[in-house]
């Protein structure tokens, strides 16, 4: 089983990157973060397209990069399959020629046929990229990276250029394709659904640093800091003035949490864990303002007396109160996270509700 370990530091102008990343074979590891957080830089450094200022990259027993020992393996010798965001297909080559580009001549015919078949591209083998649909182009890029039998597969926002309907199907295809691979896969993304659907491990990045890493479900369910919560889609983040007897109080109202006593801080809850009920006794009152159709679910936007917006996801079976009606919001304490003031010192300034 191959395995990648990378410690990378890089400085470019005001941007500073300093991360430790570990990728295991046979699983997708995601780098999740806003644009400018350093995701693509890490991907490029792993591929050998960018030199880190300091650091090292090890693949199994092989050293790809070590700035102390002055080791630098060129991209040609790393055998990293890269699927670029814009696919970077060779426009003057056919689909078959694109897929075969990185394969030694002796195995080319066999490998190309194999991947044309697996990616359902046999019918368009002789077409040029400009004649293909978005989904086909994406598959050609994937096939080209996989046909060379990579030691590491790097996916840079691979689904951002295809439309929504196709995205879901391509993700399922990708997951099936990589299920039995013997190499690590890195997925760079800022799409939460994509990370949840595809990745097993996740690194949450912001401003060149890893804020939290681990199993996707755990990181998404238990963000360590307010900033991580923000990045992994906790849309409801409320400032807490004080916490007394298991109740967190803010200008927006109050919510029961697991912690007993505490100073000021923040409390967060995912939209799917917030429940809504018609006006009744409760701690958190709000007015139902909007209903947004998100396909399988609806998102209800509620506004509290102090102007705080709260988002609730509900299935279609749920009977929604009328717009403008006063509702009571609540959440099971186990789904609420409370961060004390000093736990989120690094992000307090950037956060606004």
């Amino acid at each position: 089983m191959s395995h990648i370990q990378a410690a990378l530091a890089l400085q470019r102008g005001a941007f500073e990157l300093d991360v430790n990343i570990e990728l295991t074979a046979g699983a997708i590891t995601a780098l999740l973060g806003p644009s400018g957080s350093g995701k693509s830089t890490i991907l490029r450094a792993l591929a050998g397209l960018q030199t880190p200022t300091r650091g090292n990259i090890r693949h199994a027993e092989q050293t790809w990069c070590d700035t102390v020992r002055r080791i630098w393996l060129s991209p040609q010798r790393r055998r990293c399959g890269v699927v670029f965001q814009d696919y970077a297909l060779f426009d003057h080559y056919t689909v078959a020629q694109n897929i075969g580009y990185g394969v030694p001549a002796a195995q080319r015919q066999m490998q190309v046929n194999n991947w044309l078949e697996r990616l359902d591209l046999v019918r368009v083998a002789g077409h040029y990229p400009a004649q293909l649909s978005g989904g086909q182009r994406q598959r050609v890029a994937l096939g080209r990276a996989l046909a060379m039998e990579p030691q590491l597969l790097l996916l840079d926002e691979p689904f951002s250029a295809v439309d929504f309907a196709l995205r879901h199907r391509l993700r399922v295809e990708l997951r099936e394709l990589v299920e039995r691979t013997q190499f690590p896969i890195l997925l760079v993304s800022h799409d939460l659904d994509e990370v949840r659907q595809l990745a097993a491990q996740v690194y949450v990045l912001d401003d060149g640093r890893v804020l939290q890493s681990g199993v996707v479900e755990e990181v998404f369910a238990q963000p360590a800091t307010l900033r991580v919560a923000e990045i992994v889609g906790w849309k409801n983040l409320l400032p807490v003035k004080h916490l007394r007897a298991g109740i967190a109080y803010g200008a927006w109202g109050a919510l029961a949490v697991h912690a007993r006593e505490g100073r000021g801080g923040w409390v967060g809850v995912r939209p799917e864990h917030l429940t809504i009920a018609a006006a009744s006794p409760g701690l958190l009152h709000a007015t139902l303002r909007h209903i947004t159709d998100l396909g399988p679910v609806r998102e209800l936007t509620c506004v509290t007396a102090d102007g705080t917006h709260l988002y609730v996801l509900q299935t279609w079976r749920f009977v929604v109160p009328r717009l403008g009606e006063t509702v009571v919001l609540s959440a099971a304490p186990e789904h609420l996270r409370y961060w004390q003031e000093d736990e989120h010192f690094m992000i307090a300034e950037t956060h606004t509700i």
Partner: protein
Amino acid sequence: MDEAILAAVITTLRLAGTTTAILFVIGVPLAWWLAQHGSRGKLAIEAIVALPLVLPPTVLGFYLLIVLGPQGPLGDLWINWLGHPLAFTFSGLVIASCLYSLPFVVQPLQAAFESLDRHTLEAAWTLGASPWRAFWNIAVPQARRGFLIAAVLGFAHTVGEFGVVLMVGGNIAGETQVISIAIYEQVETLNYQAAHRLSAAMIVFSFIVLLAVYSWNRRQAGWWR
């Protein structure tokens, strides 16, 4: 068409062909370097490459005459090496033409290289292609229109040069007399009929070449679409 005129036509085509070939050997790596690097030295080299565009041909011709002449550094070297001088020879003319037409080859190539999709080159490298292989089968096909424009402009500009040729090549029939000089000579000797024939032939030739190139270029533009 008398022999002198035929000789001038042949000299012109030989000169333009040789110059274009040499300029490709020099211009492709130079344009690639200019397109890939952003150092301060780049600006100076870009300015030097563009100099022939703004200088009067006589200025270039004058200094070339000095450098290529028997007392000049390059002329002296040439005499020691090959036993004959450079000025007023075909070789001297080729050197002069290369300098004179340099920007016409380098600039279209540089523009083509600068507009390459960088990701496609990087993709080729990660797929194991050496920089050399990636250049030939990824960069060159993408830049092919730049190559075509560079070749046509380099060739046509050399065919059309006059001042520099006059300064360093003189007017030796069969050796350095090109069409533009031959026309000038016919006019000087008031032989307007010959001048007419040559000038008209030049116009027709140039038009046909450009027309052929443009139509080829147009078909090329979309051959894989």
